């Protein structure tokens, strides 16, 4: 296992490319030298303990945080040099944004983003998205603050899907969703990957979800990649997968920071 992980395929086929991606906060290094390439149209799992560097990596890839060193490209666009081009390609569901506008309705919230993205017929687009994520029409005009956790999640996912993104970054996307909704979401992500070649970068603590959705995964520990490979290589069943995963996550990391 090392910090350089490349999937088969030519350069034109990569949705995400990281090369020595590093982020420091003062003396603390949150992410160190990650090199990884993810082909287009893949559902890709990204696992790690809390504080391992998953969120920092996602924030760098989504242009929220500039890398200290190294490069990251999405569909060939450098996140540091061409952030607007990158933002046109991505959708993000972060763990922390669902409570941000509790005084808005779902329609207002999504219309805001539809309009600033200059989408044609924004109202119809918003209704279609809300239909896709399964938000009951009777709730669409009510304040987000009155929604259940699952409903808030659906609104966030609808926002991330706005503008037909090429790469989706999802941080615990199904947390709080009930089982049917979770299944619907998985099916939606699979459909997006197959039909529209959407790449999904999925960060989750749900082993079952990762195993169900992702053929390839990376595991990050203390800012470094400690595993990149096929999901099935970590175990044929959920128990062995989790045992191997825990072993990876708790093993000492050489030159850890």
């Amino acid at each position, binding site marked *: 296992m090392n910090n350089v992980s490349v999937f088969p395929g030519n350069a034109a086929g990569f949705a995400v490319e990281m090369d020595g991606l590093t982020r420091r906060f003062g003396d603390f290094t949150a992410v160190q030298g990650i090199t990884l390439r993810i082909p287009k149209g893949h559902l890709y799992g990204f696992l790690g303990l809390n504080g391992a560097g998953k969120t920092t990596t996602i924030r760098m890839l989504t242009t929220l945080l500039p890398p200290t060193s190294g490069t990251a490209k999405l569909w060939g666009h450098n996140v540091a040099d061409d952030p607007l081009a990158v933002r046109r390609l991505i959708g993000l569901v972060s763990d922390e944004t669902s409570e*941000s506008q509790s005084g808005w309705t779902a329609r207002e919230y999504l219309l805001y983003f539809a309009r*600033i993205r*200059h989408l044609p017929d924004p109202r119809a687009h918003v209704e279609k998205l809300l239909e896709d994520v399964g938000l009951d029409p009777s709730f669409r005009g009510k304040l987000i603050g009155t929604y259940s956790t699952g409903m808030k999640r659906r609104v966030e996912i609808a926002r991330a899907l706005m503008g037909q993104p090429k790469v989706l970054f999802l941080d615990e996307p199904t947390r709080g969703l009930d089982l049917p909704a979770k299944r619907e979401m998985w099916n939606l992500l699979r459909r997006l990957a197959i039909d529209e070649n959407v790449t999904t970068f999925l960060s989750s603590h749900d082993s079952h979800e990762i195993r169900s959705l992702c053929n390839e995964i990376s595991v990050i520990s203390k800012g470094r990649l400690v595993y990149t490979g096929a999901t099935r290589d970590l175990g044929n069943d959920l128990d062995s997968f989790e045992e191997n995963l825990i072993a990876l996550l708790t093993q000492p990391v050489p030159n850890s920071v």
Partner: protein
Amino acid sequence: MALPIATLYAEELKATMRGRFAWIGAGVVLLAMGGLATLSTQGGWLQGYGILAYGLVPLAFLPIAAGLMASPRTNRFVECIFTAPVNRRDWLAAKFLVLFTLAAAYYIALLPAMFVYTTHVGVPLLLHKYLLWTPGVLLAEIAIGSLIGLLFIGRSVMAPIGTAMGLLLAYVVFIPMQEVMTSQGNGATRTGHITLASPAVLLKNALGFTLGIRTIPSHTRMTWISFAVVVFGSLLLAAWVFLQAQGVETWEATRPQRWILGLALLSIALFPVIFAETTYDGIAPAQSRAPQSRFGARHGEAALVRSGAPISRRCCSVILNWDHPDILANRSNRRDLLLLLPVDAAKAVTNFHATLEGGEGLEATADSSSLQQAAPTLETRTYPNDSGPEMPDGHRLTASWVLRIPVTLLPRNPWDLSVIYPLHIAATYAVSGDPQPQSFDEHAGVRSRIGGAMVQMALAGGILPLCCFAAAFVRWRRTR
């Protein structure tokens, strides 16, 4: 396709009023201002409502701007915005435009009440200065507030709003402090210089007016430059911090950038304190046509009551109708003027001669038969518990004479909605058993108001708050 900045501006403006209590808050503030306008017409509208509405409330845009700039970054909304194809420069410009729009809306909200006022009174100098002072103060507070909001990048809105509130209090306190210090000749002391840190004080000096004192700086060039440094320095620094020294989520400033930021903040804070003009050697222009005479709560010897009405138990003040309704401006008002003659009711009063002289536009007339009476008709007033006027020999009267003169008062050209006209009453009379003629001399005031103005002010001040409450109700109905 619409310009991105125009779309962002429109969406951010709508978003601002989607807050749970945004419309209600705006309505309450405007209703309070309307109520104050109505109440202030009972005193000096310019000195009461004017200072509050045109000077102090605009200062409150300091914490508003800080909160509006900081909140999207404290509740992580920026993560959603800046993972959409939005240029940070455009978003910042849209935010500034939203703040300027809110400021303009506040300024416009003051107009209905102001139009009522100017219709009746015209535009006195103080109001003219207020109309320039307010946009300047709003601009300065938005610039400084935005800078504070952008300096605090983090997960709590309390830090920027708390800082802005502290600065707001200082700015408010510096206004009377500067006037008091200047009136005492201490405008150029160290503390006098510090008061110039308030943009409201700077702009007041630059515009050449005062709220209560008679001296202003005769030179204003450095004051104007200082004001420009504060306003445009804050705006430019805010933009530089947001675009160059910070990322979406956190500071990304290099060491040289930190030095630049520190020095810039220090310069903006100290420039007006050091360089603004503090030589108060000019004479402040008169705020309005108001007379210089002032009527306090002094005891008086006369009263103005409705025709035939008895004298009040609590009589009397130097303001003749202080406990009776105001007389109406620009109309003839029939009243009875009651003179409390300090004469024992056991003695006769004869040969009464009186003159009335109104000032500052008050015409006071009475029948000559009332002003010249050989044997006047008198009423008595009794004083219980030894509370009567003290006589030269030391004893207090238990009953004295009151002389009633029917008068007609016509107040013209009021200089405010509610004013006090001066009225000079002089009289001589003889008292039985006393060879010396007695005299009565009273420099009094008569309170007058413009009829209907108060109701008009209340209606004018109530239109926009009602619109705000209606908007809040509609939104509540729509989203519940």
